[in-house]
């Protein structure tokens, strides 16, 4: 579906990707502003990676969300799902307007992803540490069935505290899982504070290397770097690969960047207006959104 432009002859339209990323950031603020609760910081840090994945790299078909040969994505940092929901909506899985029902009773857009309710979601997540195992299980299924789809894993830095991540990491290298490309959204914060203060997992790159993974460090907000790294991570021949994407929590909204108060707290009405203004949203739309905030 979206792999056409990977053919060398078609240049990647980074301007288009940049506009999509901006749309996703606006969606995230609108969704969380209206919901009144949720996780802005980790949504915004993952936005650029999700943009390049869904709009340039992954093999998927929004009109056929159960396509057996599609690439899967396990969004292991489930709390950042507003960005994922937006990427799915803007890909065409469901309407962009429905994003504004996030976290409301009866909405398919649960506070953390529910695979049964949302087309395009490949795994229910929200309990940190589980996603890499699930993606590897999907990779095993592809191997059993001799299929060439990839099962992507997007994990967070806080998750590295969890033992299950390292169970999965050891398994993947021992079994040469070359169809489970992984990305670490390394925004340097977790709920209780900075990763350094909470449980410093550095040297992170060395840990993955020691577990048998090949690594590449990038700026997780530079679309060109993300694009090239995603091409690299998906072309493993043997050892599993992981991108260590250095990101900024709250990226794109000045007062949220590196401000961990916005880990799990939604913007107020005033903050929603201010953030949308910063993101270049037009006044009519901002007024409409503010009208939906109690």
């Amino acid at each position: 579906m979206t792999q056409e432009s990977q053919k060398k002859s078609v240049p990647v339209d980074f301007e288009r990707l940049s506009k999509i990323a901006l749309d996703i950031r606006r969606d995230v603020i609108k969704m969380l502003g209206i919901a009144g609760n949720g996780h802005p910081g980790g949504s915004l840090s993952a936005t650029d990676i999700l943009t390049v994945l869904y709009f340039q790299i992954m093999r998927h078909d929004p009109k056929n969300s159960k396509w057996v040969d599609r690439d899967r994505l396990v969004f292991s940092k489930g709390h950042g799902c507003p960005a994922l929901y937006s990427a799915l909506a803007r890909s065409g899985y469901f309407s962009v307007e429905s994003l504004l029902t996030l976290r409301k009773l009866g909405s398919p857009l649960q506070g953390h992803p529910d695979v049964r309710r949302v087309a395009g979601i490949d795994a229910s997540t929200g309990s940190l540490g589980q996603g890499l195992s699930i993606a590897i299980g999907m990779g095993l299924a592809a191997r059993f069935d001799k299929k060439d789809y990839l099962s992507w894993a997007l994990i967070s830095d806080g998750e590295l505290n969890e033992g299950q991540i390292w169970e999965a990491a050891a398994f993947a290298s021992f079994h040469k899982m070359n169809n489970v490309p992984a990305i670490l959204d390394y925004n340097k914060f977790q709920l209780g504070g900075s990763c350094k203060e909470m449980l410093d997992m550095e040297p992170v790159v060395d840990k993955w290397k020691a577990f048998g993974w090949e690594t590449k460090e990038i700026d997780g907000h530079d679309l060109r770097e993300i694009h090239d790294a995603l091409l690299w991570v998906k072309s493993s021949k043997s050892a599993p690969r992981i991108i260590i994407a250095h990101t900024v929590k709250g990226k794109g909204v000045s007062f949220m960047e590196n401000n961990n108060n916005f880990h799990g707290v939604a913007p107020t009405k005033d903050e929603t207006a201010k953030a949308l203004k910063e993101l270049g949203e037009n006044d009519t739309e901002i007024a409409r959104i503010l009208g939906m905030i109690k």
Partner: protein
Amino acid sequence: MSVVRKMGAASRDAYGKALVELGNENPNVVVMDADLSKSTRTDKFGKAFPDRFIDIGIQEMNLVGLATGLASCGKIPFISSFACFLMCKGYEQLRVGVAFPELNVKVVTSHGGISVGEDGASQQSVEDFALALTLPGFTVIVPSDEHSAKALIKQAAYLKGPVYVRTSRANAALVYDEKSEFKIGKGVQLRKGKDVTLVGTGLLTFECLEAAEILKAKGIDASVIDIHTLKPLDEALILAEAQTTGAFVCAEEHLTFGGLGSVVSQFLSRKHPVPCEFVGLNDTYAESGSPQELMTKYGLTSQNVAEAAQRVLQHKRSR
């Protein structure tokens, strides 16, 4: 009819056989274990179908996560370890990764209960029924002997949705023969009586049968039913028994909290309250010893079931 204690194979051995048959029948069946395949008997499948078997090492959390991924791509993963390790260490993964998304994962554990024997309390699962029953959507099966184990595990493979099956390490007295028929969710009436109903699951089903003989000698006419499926519960059978006998004994190799006794008496209290007694472990772990010594010391024999029946009949008469 007298009850003869004729020993059969362990229910875990039946699991090994069932898996090999399933492997032949269905190419989507895949099996994973967490370094206990020789004990759980998944090694039989591993020898027959090495391409569809992975002994992943000692990592129960990852075991469940891998099964989630496999099931979400259409495979039918059977995952196994000792009941205490898989259910306790893998529980949260079963919760969010299997029960919540309603995935087609089959969790078949061995070494349930205290009949594990000499290895001691850390290896003996006395809480797995409770854990499995509190996973919404899970079918929960506890076979009593090799024949019911093999038949029910084979059926479980074709049941869409998550299933938990507990098997045992110890050889089990035969309750059935190879011609016996079973249906998941349908209890088996092993004996019809009019005074008291003895409800067993797992190894305690045979103890109930033997207890009925002890009671017969005392002039008490006991019904015996095998509830091999704790969820969904065979409510029709239990209601009919309650209306017939008006007194129940629930016997299980598990804590008396959260297992067979809890689901049966909860149902009865809603639909047809009758006096109940419970045979199981009373808020305790067990210890090392031979299986028979442990079953005796911790009150899980036919004698204990018969005594519980006499107690419950006193309640019934005094009402």
